[in-house]
Structure formats: C-alpha cells, structure tokens
C-alpha cells in the first residue's frame, strides 16, 4: 500500500531523512519508534506534502501512485491522514464546519456526492461516541482551548469522520491519561483495522501498542530505518533502551 524507497529530505538545507526505506502493505499496523530528533515527525510531514520539506531523493508510492507528485489535499483525498503530534488551533472555525468542509472537499475530489448537514452531524456524533468525546466539543473551535489529551482524542474523531485508507499517527498516545489511552487505542482498531487499510503508528511507549497490537515494529534513527521486527522489538526497547538494542 505504501512503499517508501531510499527517501531523502531536507529542511532549510539540512538533511533530515537520509535514505529511508519502508514498506507497509494493506491490512498492517506498523509501529515506528526512535529517539527524539530522529526524523519521525519529518517523515509524517514529508508523506503529507508539507511545504518547506524538500524531497531530494527516493520515491514514495501510495497504492501504486507517485505520492510525492500530489498536492497535500490530493493526498488527503486519496486516503492519507496525518494524526499530528501537535494538533493545530484554528480560531473562529468550529470542528463541525472544519470537518464537514474537509470531508466534502475530499468527496468532491473523489467524485462523490457531498454529505448534507444532517448526514454529517449523524456521522460526527457517531464517531465522537466511539472516542467517548463529548459531542458538544465539536461545536467548539478547532483545538482552541482543548487540553493536550482532548486534542489527541479530537484528532481520532477527525480520523473517524474522514475515514482514511492510510493513517500516519504521530505520538497520538502522548498526553493521554490511562483510560483515554485505551479508548483511543480501541478507536484506532475500530477505524483502521481492515484488510484494505494500514497504519504507521509513531510512538515512544509500549502502552499504546498493547492495545493496538502492531504487526511490525521499526526503529527510525538518524533519518533511516535501522531495524525492523515484530511486537517483541517494542517490548525489548522499553526494557533496554535504544542504545542497547541498536548496538546489539
């Protein structure tokens, strides 16, 4: 589904991704772990097409298409979703307005009919219930005044509503309390666990992986994937730390 080959990318002339290769087939959840500053968020931005992140080499294919050739909104319409490490506030714009516009733009790009206000609200309520987010929160402005945990939970409600094919979730677990972690983990399973979908799950901790249960775990360090294994790799990392595991 997603094939990244020998990807290099730079910000302000500084190389951050340095020959990164990774393949995630449909039906898989692939966890990415790695030290601070390794380039995990950069990877997610490059996949999303963020301006300022310049790809200097390599390729990314998404369902057979050249992902790097698409505009950010085209990537979204093609089914790519980024769960942001730091979700962004948009004052004056309610979640309902934001997501309805976003969803209908995606649908339009795919040649589908737009959802009516009523249909959208029903969908939005359903997904907030799934993530146990008070639907009243949807009336509030996008992420404005949300607590750290609420922002992460709202990201997952957004994912539920937009129903992507492929999600890159950047530290969605950070800032969540213990109960919320379980709710969010189960939310990810229910939204994204499907034979035609896949997830790249960036995290620092084993806890979320106990709920989401990745098929594979990779270590990203200094801009490339240095090691790939099964779920046991995450357990080892938690016990021994990066230095020990990577040195072994």
């Amino acid at each position: 589904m997603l094939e990244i080959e020998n990807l290099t990318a730079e910000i302000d002339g500084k190389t951050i991704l340095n020959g990164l290769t990774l393949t995630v087939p449909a039906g898989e959840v692939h966890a990415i772990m790695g030290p601070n500053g390794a380039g995990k968020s950069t990877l997610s931005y490059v996949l999303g097409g963020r301006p300022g992140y310049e790809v200097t080499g390599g390729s990314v294919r998404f369902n057979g298409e050249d992902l790097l050739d698409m505009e950010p909104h085209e990537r979204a319409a093609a089914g790519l979703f980024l769960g942001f490490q730091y979700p962004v506030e948009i004052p004056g714009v309610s979640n309902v307005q934001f997501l309805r516009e976003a969803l209908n733009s995606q649908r339009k790009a795919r040649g589908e009919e737009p959802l009516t206000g009523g249909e959208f609200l029903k969908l939005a309520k359903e997904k907030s219930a799934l993530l146990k987010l008070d639907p009243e929160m949807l009336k509030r402005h996008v992420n404005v005044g949300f607590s750290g945990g609420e922002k992460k939970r709202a990201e997952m409600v957004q994912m539920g509503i937009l129903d992507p094919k492929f999600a890159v979730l950047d530290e969605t677990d950070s800032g969540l309390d213990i109960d919320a972690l379980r709710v969010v983990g189960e939310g990810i399973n229910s939204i994204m666990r499907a034979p035609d979908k896949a997830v790249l799950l960036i995290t620092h901790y084993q806890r979320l992986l106990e709920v989401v249960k990745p098929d594979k775990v990779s270590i990203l360090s200094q801009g490339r994937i240095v090691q790939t294994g099964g779920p046991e790799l995450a357990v080892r990392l938690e016990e021994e730390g990066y230095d020990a595991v990577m040195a072994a």
Partner: protein
Amino acid sequence: MSEDIDIQDREAREAAEKAAEYEHGWSSDIETEFAEKGLNEDTVRFISAKKGEPEWMLDWRLKAFRLWQEMEEPNWAKLGYPEIDYQDAYYYAAPKKKVELDSLDDLDPEIKRVYDKLGIPLGEQEVLAGVKGAKKVAVDAVFDSVSVATSFREELKRAGVIFLSISEAIREYPDLVKKWLGKVVPQHDNYFATLNSAVFSDGTFVYVPEGVRCPMELSTYFRINAENTGQFERTLIVAEKGSYVSYLEGCTAPMRDENQLHAAVVELVAMEDAEIKYSTVQNWYPGNSEGVGGIYNFVTKRALCQGARSKVSWTQVETGSAVTWKYPSCVLNGEDSVGEFYSVAVTNNYQQADTGTKMIHNGRGSRSTIISKGISAGKSDNTYRGMVRVAANADGVRNRTECDSLLIGDRCGAHTVPYIEVKNPTAQIEHEATTSKISDDQLFYAMQRGLDDEEAMALIVNGFAKDVLKELPMEFAVEAQKLLAISLEGSVG
C-alpha cells in the same frame, strides 16, 4: 453620441470578458444619458432638474457646491493615489428608459439579467417572483444612479414604513427630508461629503414611525454602470421612538481601467429606544492585480443616537475598491445609548484601505463596542483609524475596542491608529490590538484534511473574521464569506 456609448460599452464588455479573475467584471448594455463631463453650477442645476427637484433642494445643492469650491481635499489618511481631476468625470448617469413598474415582471429583462449576474440570492429572487412563503427581503434596486425598481412598497406602507429612493422622498415627503437631510453629516462636514451634497444622484430614504418594527430587512444593491461616472449616493434613515430597522447595503462594480470616484453619504437618526442595524458588503472593483483601475471610495457614514437607549450597529465587510476612506461613526447623544462598529476590511494586491470608526460619547452611560478585523495580502496597505471621545459631562461611559490584523505574506502593511480623548474620569475605555500572520501550520493542517490552498486560506480568514461576520444578517453572511475568499484569491504561496 449614442454610437459612441455603444462602442464604449462593447469595449468595456470585451475588457470585462478578458478579466475573468474579477467575478463581477462585466458591463451591461443599457443606454446611459450623461450630464456633460465636468463639474460647475450648471452640472448641479442639470442634476436637480433631471430629478424634478423643488427649488429648496436646488438651493441646498448649490450652497454645498459653493462650499466645496472653497475646500481642499483631505490628505491625512494613510493613502496614496493619483490626483483626481474632478473636471474629468461625469456626475450624472441614468437609465434612458424610465420605467414605471406595475409589478416586477415588468422589470427590464436586461436589468433582471444584471441582477442574476450579481448573484442576488435565490431566496430573494423567489421573493421577487412572488413565491409564497419566501423570506421577505425588500430590494430597492439602484441601477446606476436612479432607482429603477422598488418592491414591497405596499407591505411596508401598511406597516407605515417609508422606503423610497431619496429623489422620490424629496418630492413626496419634503418636510421629513428637509428636517433631517444634512443634520447628521452637515454640508460642510468634509470635502467628499460636501461634494456629495452638491451632486448626489440618488440613494435611499427610510422612515420608520414610532413603535414600528420594520417587517423585513431592507436592502439596496448599488452598482456603477457607466464609464467615468462618479457615484454619489445619499442615504437617510430615520427611526422614530421605539422603532427598529435593519438595512443591508451591498454593491459590486464592473471592470474598468479608469479609476472611478465614489463618494457616498449615509445619515442615520435613532430616537429614544430606537434601533438601527446597518450592514454593508462593499465589493467595488478593486483594480487588477497590477494595481490598475479600481474604485476610489470616499464615504461618510454617521449615525446620531439622539434618544435615550437608542442603538446603532454598523457592520461592514469591505473587500473592494482601490482606495477606501471610510469611518462609520456614532454620535451618542442619548443617555445609555449604544454604538457598535463591526468591521472586516480586506486588502489584496495594491489596494489601500483607511477605515475605522468614531464613537463620540456625549450622553451619560453611553456605551460602544468596536471590533475591527483587518486582513492584508499582496502589496496592500490596511489601516484602522478610530476615535473614542468622551465629553466632560458624560458620566459612566464605556468603550471596548478590539483591533486585530492578519497579514498574508510579507509585502503588505497593517496599521492601527487609535485616538482616545477622554474628558470624564468615570469613563472605562479598553483597547486591545493584535497583529498576526496566517500560519503555515494552520494552512498545512487544513490542507492535510482535504482543503486546497485557497479553501484553506478562506477557512482560516473566515475564522479570523468570525466575530464580525456573525453580526451580519443571514442573507449577507454567506455572500460575505464567499467574498472574503474571492478577494484573497491568488494571495497564497
């Protein structure tokens, strides 16, 4: 002569077709009858005669004209524009066929087509067609300078509301007009208001009698339609004791290469417990992306909150014009009277806007709120200029001012110039100002969710302007949002 006009019109139309970037940039075919180019006493007499005005009105105009000749164009605003040659413009243009309409079906199909192009909302078109249950919005259509069609006059009449073109009002209600015309904005008020007093072509008169709540929103669509024609609209709204009226003013203009002068005057009077809500969406042609052409818009708008507990709200969305000079103000004479000013001003490319408000607190306990949102993009300049003045004997005055500027790109300017003059120590004045840049984080976040760059920009900008947009009547809110997006096209990246 008429052949000349045809050629002009054809050229204008062709130019308009080329300029697809300006949605309303086109010209229509209706023949125009001009007054001779230039401005002198004869022009003033011509206009007055054309309108069939009584002697007193002509005298009033001539007095203004003589005052104007002694005055100098102001230059204190932060605006730069080439010198205007007042002798090189037309001061009067009217549709040739003056139609007396029995019903709107009789409306000139050409004019109807103009309305369609202007995008008058479907709801209003339904009302125009008399569809049962359609929301009532009266449209007093000002085509060029003369009112061509007035609808719903009957229903308004039953409520006792007078809603006429100012020319008709001068003929039919001379006493009312005489009583108030020039009382809020005196003839000698400023250069442009004085010019307007001499040559105003048409406009609107609204009178809401004591205790009457106007049964519908009143709206007027203005349009400049003849090349080189200065537009001098005159609006007078009087709300008697305990009455209420909401008035919508919106305008668009066709594509032109030459700069056009527009100097309107709007006077509002609110008596005891009366309320006037005045909403404007201004979309005069701003000039092309190189800064060529566009309307010069010098407007004087002022409200007299004369009675106790009277209230006036100005809400404006300013997206058009090459140059905007406009300060809708409230003179708060009444005890506990309320003045509000909600403004969104967008400038893009080479547009310049110097706009704001004056709140003059003379009444005890009078209150005012100012929310100004300036959005600048391209190489434009956007200035908020506001004054809050509290008279010595006005106790317990309160004002809250919030001025936010949003910059798009780094070649535009935003300026805030607040003047505060407080002569009474009990006044509570709050002033807050912020300047922010549209953030790449926000744009990318919205694009990642599926919006293209211009949709993302429109969303963020509408969010920024929300506190003002929510003050607009429903009919206008949607249009205004679209307008913000259209005016910022091409400013991303």
